[in-house]
C-alpha cells in the first residue's frame, strides 16, 4: 500500500491550538499500526475556529476532520479515516463547507491546498504562470496590466498600484528596489501571515513580476518579528525558488535578474508606515519621513522603490496569468477584485474569508461569523485595525468598499474585523487607542507624540470631570487629525471619535458613578 497523504496545517494559528501535537500523534499512531503516512504541513484553509483541521487525501478526494487534537487520533485511525471513514469529526470535502463554498479565492487560491514551500506543487496549482507571461512582456505592458486590473494597495491606504509602479518604471536610476511591507501590526489582521505561511511562493512570484515591471533587481520583505513561522516559511520558499531557478541572475532561463531576501523588524508598529519601514530597513530608527519625495522616486537607500503590502503583491501573479479583465470583473465601484477579510475577536467562527468587494459587515458577522463567541449581542466592531473606527449595529449594512466605508467615517484598511459583545466599555477602547498611539509613536511630530499622552489623560478625566471633557477631547482629536505627519497620529482619532459619536452613553461617567 502506498503512503496516504495527510495534511496537518503548520499555520501559526493551527499550531497555537495543538496542530504540532496532532501531527506527531498521527505519525506515531501510523507507525504503531504499520501504516504509511506522508505528512504535509500545509497552510490553513482559513476556518480557524475548526483548527487543527486535518485533511486526508483519499481516492475520493480530500476529506477533512476537525478539530483534531492528539487525543482524537487513535479513534480516527479506528474509524478508518485514511480511507475517509466516518467519525463525529468528519466534515467531508471542506471546499463544500458553507464557510468556504461561496468564497472567491484569488490571492488565497492555493493557501491550505498545497505544500507551501514546494515549487513543483506550486507550479501544479497554477503557480509561475504569471511570471512566465511577464517574462515575455515589455515592462511597460506589465505595468499596464496591473493598472487595467485597477488593483489598489491592500495595506490600508488603497492607493492605485499601477500608478505607483508606473512612477518607478518611468524613473531612470542605476538601482531600484521592490519592498514588501509584511509588518502586519494591526490587531485583527492575519491575512499577510496566513499567505506567507501558506503560499509564500505567491508573494515571491508577485515581487519578481514587480521587479521585471519596473526594472528592479533586488527585493526585500520586511517581516515583523512576531511572525517566526512566516520567517521560516519565507526563507525556505526563497531558498527553494533560487534552487529551481525562479530567483537569481537568470530567472527561468530568461537572463533577467531578481534577488530577494527577508529582513526582520523589531516590534515597532510604526514600521508598518512605509517611510518608517524604509528607515528601519536602512538600519535606523523607524522614524517617519516627510513626503515628498515619494518612495517611488527616493525610497530605500534613496533609490526609486516600489513598496506594497503582501496581499497586493499576492494578487499580481493571478492578474498576469489570467489577465487584468478577469480581476477587474470582480468587485464594485472603484474597489475592484477581491479582499481577504479577517474575522477576529469575539466571534463564533473566526477566520479568513476572501470575497469580492461589495458584501456587507452583516453578512460577514452573522452568515460567516455566526455572531459573537460569547453568545451575547454584538455591540461594536472595529474595522481596519487600531486606527479604524468603531461601528455600531446601525452601520452593519454598509457595503465593504473603500468609498462606502469612507462615507461613514470608517476605513476598510487591511480587512481586519474585530468583534466586541455588549460587555465592551467603549471609553476603555477609546483610551486604549490613545495609549497605543503613545506607546508606538515614533516621536517625530508633536500632535502624535504629545497628543496621544494628553488624550489618555483627558479620557481618564471623564470619570471625575464628566462630559465637560468632551470639548477638549474633540479639539485634541482635531489637532491630531490635521497636524500629524503620518496615519498613526492622523488616524488615532478615528477609533476615539467613533466611540464618542456612536456610544456616548459609555462616556457619561458622572451620572453612572458605579461604572467609574
Amino acid at each position, binding site marked *: 500500500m502506498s503512503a496516504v497523504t495527510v495534511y496537518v496545517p503548520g499555520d501559526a494559528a493551527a499550531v*497555537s491550538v495543538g496542530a504540532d501535537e496532532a501531527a506527531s500523534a498521527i505519525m506515531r499512531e501510523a507507525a504503531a499500526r504499520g501504516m504509511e503516512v506522508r505528512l504535509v504541513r500545509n497552510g490553513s484553509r482559513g476556518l480557524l475556529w475548526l483548527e487543527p483541521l486535518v485533511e486526508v487525501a483519499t481516492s475520493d478526494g480530500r476529506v477533512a476532520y476537525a478539530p483534531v487534537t492528539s487525543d482524537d487520533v487513535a479513534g480516527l485511525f479506528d474509524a478508518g479515516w485514511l480511507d475517509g471513514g466516518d467519525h463525529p469529526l468528519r466534515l467531508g470535502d471542506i471546499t463544500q463547507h458553507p464557510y468556504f463554498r461561496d468564497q472567491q479565492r484569488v490571492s488565497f487560491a492555493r493557501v491550505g491546498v498545497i505544500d507551501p514551500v514546494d515549487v513543483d506543487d506550486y507550479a501544479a496549482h497554477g503557480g509561475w504562470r504569471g511570471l512566465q507571461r511577464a517574462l515575455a512582456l515589455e515592462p511597460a505592458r506589465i505595468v499596464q496590466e496591473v493598472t487595467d486590473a485597477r488593483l489598489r494597495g491592500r495595506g490600508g491606504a488603497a492607493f492605485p498600484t499601477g500608478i505607483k509602479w508606473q512612477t518607478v518604471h518611468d524613473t531612470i536610476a542605476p538601482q531600484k528596489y521592490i519592498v514588501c511591507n509584511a509588518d502586519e501590526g494591526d490587531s485583527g489582521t492575519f491575512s499577510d501571515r496566513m499567505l506567507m505561511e501558506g503560499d509564500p511562493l505567491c508573494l515571491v512570484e508577485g515581487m519578481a513580476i514587480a521587479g521585471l515591471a519596473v526594472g528592479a533587481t533586488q527585493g526585500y520583505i520586511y517581516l515583523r518579528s512576531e511572525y517566526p513561522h512566516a520567517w521560516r516559511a519565507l526563507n525556505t520558499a526563497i531558498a527553494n525558488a533560487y534552487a529551481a531557478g525562479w530567483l537569481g541572475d537568470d530567472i527561468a532561463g530568461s537572463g533577467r535578474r531578481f534577488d530577494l531576501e527577508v529582513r526582520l523588524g523589531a516590534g515597532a508598529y510604526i514600521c508598518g508606515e512605509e517611510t518608517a519601514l524604509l528607515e528601519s530597513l536602512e538600519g535606523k530608527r523607524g522614524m517617519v519621513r516627510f513626503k515628498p519625495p515619494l518612495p517611488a522616486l527616493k525610497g530605500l537607500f534613496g533609490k526609486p522603490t516600489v513598496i506594497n503590502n503582501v496581499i497586493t503583491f499576492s494578487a499580481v501573479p493571478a492578474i498576469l496569468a489570467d489577465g487584468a479583465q478577469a480581476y477587474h470583473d470582480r468587485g464594485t465601484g472603484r474597489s475592484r477584485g477581491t479582499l481577504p477579510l479577517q474575522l477576529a475577536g469575539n466571534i463564533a467562527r*473566526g477566520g479568513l474569508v476572501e470575497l469580492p468587494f461589495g458584501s456587507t459587515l452583516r453578512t460577514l458577522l452573522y452568515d460567516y461569523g455566526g455572531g459573537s463567541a460569547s453568545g451575547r449581542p454584538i455591540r461594536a466592531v472595529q474595522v481596519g485595525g487600531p486606527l479604524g473606527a468603531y461601528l455600531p449595529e446601525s452601520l452593519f449594512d454598509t457595503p465593504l468598499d473603500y468609498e462606502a466605508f469612507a462615507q461613514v467615517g470608517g476605513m476598510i484598511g487591511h480587512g481586519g474585523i474585530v468583534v466586541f459583545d455588549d460587555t*465592551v466599555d467603549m471609553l476603555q477602547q477609546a483610551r486604549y487607542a490613545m495609549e497605543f498611539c503613545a506607546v508606538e509613536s515614533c516621536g517625530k511630530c508633536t500632535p502624535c507624540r504629545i497628543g496621544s499622552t494628553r488624550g489618555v489623560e483627558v479620557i481618564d478625566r471623564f470619570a471625575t470631570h464628566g462630559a465637560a471633557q468632551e470639548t477638549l477631547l474633540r479639539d485634541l482629536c482635531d489637532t491630531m487629525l490635521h497636524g500629524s505627519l503620518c496615519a498613526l497620529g492622523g488616524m488615532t482619532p478615528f477609533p476615539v471619535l467613533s466611540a464618542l459619536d456612536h456610544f456616548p452613553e459609555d462616556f457619561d461617567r458622572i451620572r453612572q458613578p458605579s461604572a467609574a
Partner: protein
Amino acid sequence: MGKRARHIESVTEVVPALDLDQVAPVEAAIARHRGRPGALLPILHAVQDALGHVPEGAVAPIAAALNMTRADVHGVVSFYHHFRSAPPGRHVLQLCRAEACQSMGARELESHARTRLGLSATAHHTGDGQFTLEPVYCLGNCALSPSLLLDGRLHGRMTPARLDALLAACRDDVERAA
C-alpha cells in the same frame, strides 16, 4: 593633580564593556552581517538571539564596525520594543494586549497572570529571576484570541486555567533544573 584635571576626570564617561563570554557572540554577529546594506538590525537580532538581550557593551563595537556613533546605535536599540537591554528571566511570557484579544478577556488574563506571578501593574520581572512578563501588540492569531507567547511558543484561546497549567509546567522545569 590640579583642579582642572579632576574636573575632566569627573565628566569622562566609562564606555560599557562586554563580559568576556559575550565578546565572541557579538564579534560573530558583526562579522556575519556587517557587509550587508542596512546591517544594524540584522546584527542586533543576531546578538539578541545569542545572548537573550543586547548588552550595553555591544553598542561600542557595533558602532565602530558600522562607522556610526554610539548614540546612533543606542538610539536604534532603545527605539525597538523587541530589543532588550537587560537579560530576561528564565521564562518569557508575552501577553497580547491588542483589541482582538481584549474582546476575549486579555485584560483579565493579564491581571490574572500578574497575580499568579506576584507582579505589580507595572513590573516586568519576578524577583527570583524566573519570569519576565512583557506586553506585545498583536501576534496575528486574532481569530483564536486571547493569545500569548511563552518562550517563543504561540498559544491561542488562552484561559486563566490553561495559563496556570503552562506556568506550573515552567515551575516544574525550574525545580528539575535546581
